[in-house]
């Protein structure tokens, strides 16, 4: 079934895709990492090639191996954490709140 040969032809992941994906999942990667990730992701996907081309029409997806439905909680208040316990783990705090740098990406400075 699964060998260790890499066949990037079958499911190649490009450098551009790697960079796009890194942006989506908030990872900073340098050129070397991007190259390496493209090769490794291609390898994993090429191993999955047989699975990806399997005819599964009419098969329902399994999101969950459980037969449960309608698991509900009663609408009763339970004790919350103390504010101090909430904030004590935070990297930066001000006035009872979590402090973060500006939420919008700063454009790179003009030369």
């Amino acid at each position, binding site marked *: 079934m699964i060998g260790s040969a890499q066949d990037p032809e079958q499911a190649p992941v490009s450098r551009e895709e790697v960079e796009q994906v890194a942006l989506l999942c908030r990872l900073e990667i340098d050129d070397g990492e991007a190259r390496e990730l493209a090769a490794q992701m291609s390898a994993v996907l090429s191993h999955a090639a047989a699975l990806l081309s399997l005819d599964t029409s009419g098969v329902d997806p399994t999101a969950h191996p459980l037969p449960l*439905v*309608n698991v509900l909680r009663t609408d009763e208040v339970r004790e919350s954490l103390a504010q101090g316990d909430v904030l004590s783990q935070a990297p930066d705090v001000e006035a009872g709140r979590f402090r973060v740098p500006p939420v919008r990406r700063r454009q790179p400075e003009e030369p």
Partner: protein
Amino acid sequence: MSAYGSERQRRREGGARDYEGFECVVGLEVHCELLTATKLFCGCKNAFGDEPNTNTCPVCLGLPGSLPVLNGHAVELAMRIGLALNCTVQPSIFHRKNYFYPDMPKDYQISQYDIPINTDGYLDLPSGARVGIVRAHIEEDTGKTTHSGGGGRIHDAMYSLVDYNRAGVPLVEIVSEPDIRSGEQAREYVSELRAVLVAVGASDGRMEEGSLRVDANVSVRRPGEPFGTRCEIKNLNSLRSLGRAVDYETRRQVDLLVSGGAVAQETRHWDEQAGHTVVMRSKEEAEDYRYFPEPDLVPLAPDAAWQERISRAMAPLPAGRRRALLDSVGAEGPAMVERVATVVAQDLDGYVMAAVDAGAPGALALSRAANELAAACAEDASLLDALEPGHFASLVAMEARGDLTATQAKAVLAEMLTSGEPPEAIASRKGFEALDPGSLRRAVEEVVAANSAEWERYKEGEAKMAQFFVGQVMKATRQKADGKAVMALLADLLRGSAGAP
């Protein structure tokens, strides 16, 4: 096309406004915070205005290892909303909507995606238009970010502060069809939707506290043409903002098209102070939310019995109450329809119904409720706590019989609201006994005789002198006179004196 398609088409044209040959097309997304005791997935208090980060726990902070458990009452409220909006209530699942934002503790939002709890409904507006409902799904709210430095504006903030008290508060997002055709109609839709949400106990309806938040998708087109490119407008936190923003945005898009430009698909922010929309992000910056089924929750499957139980326990909806009130007072015409709408909106229809049941004339009861009671309500809703429906019915009956003049009735009603006493007691304490027609006529004649110069001016045709005489008669009768009756007597005297030699 849905079953009510042709109906919708007709109604659409009714609500449309013309903008240089263009019409605006609006679909609204309304986020409604549910009136539960606790959050959607944890037992933290669902409350507004508490100290920051005090209603938080491992679950709603998204701490590692924590897991969501669904609030059953939130589900029931969502089902009530679905039933009230004539939706199909169906088995559903939750998805994760993945995107990074500091006010979202897990950096994904648990929401419903392609299999929501409520689909395919509609809402009929008081004006007669019908707006289709695409879906009404359950999701969690985010925390609240405050931007500091740079005047508190997001674009030039030095830093931001996050409070997670609101994170995980249950929301139902109600998505309308693009059936709305003007800013005015958008307001009417949200106003009616709010009344429905309040009626079913799902919402407190407080837009200013963010209990109800509206995003508008606005595009323009020439009637009959396919939809144009739409812009989504955020930050509409009042009916006023909504109406203004839709009108502004329509204008902006029409101007663009008329001057040969094109509308770009983007998300825009309504600036209430400046009265315009500004671009927040373009289509290219749109997120890829990577939706996938939430593995920490199991499906919801509301069976028929559960739905039946909820449907039976549901309070009557505003539209039904308006219909019942109109029937009960037997009134017609736009003015009456408006009064009925006011009375139901202020939850005063019970008083009118009680008066009618007790034999009082409906139109008069409606008038007192739509004017005096509604005004009192707007000032302080708790004023109504002291007023018993039976007392209101007696008051209307007294006025109808002529035992009280309109002025006296209003004065008595005002005191009933503060003291809670029956109207008979107040009227007799104030010495409000009805004047018999004979003594009223005598009083008018005496006033006319005592003010001959003014009477001459009135006779010359100086109409405003009528007010002077009404005032004098009121004074003379210690407010017992009915202003309308005085006017009639004055006119009568005028005719008499004109005929004299």
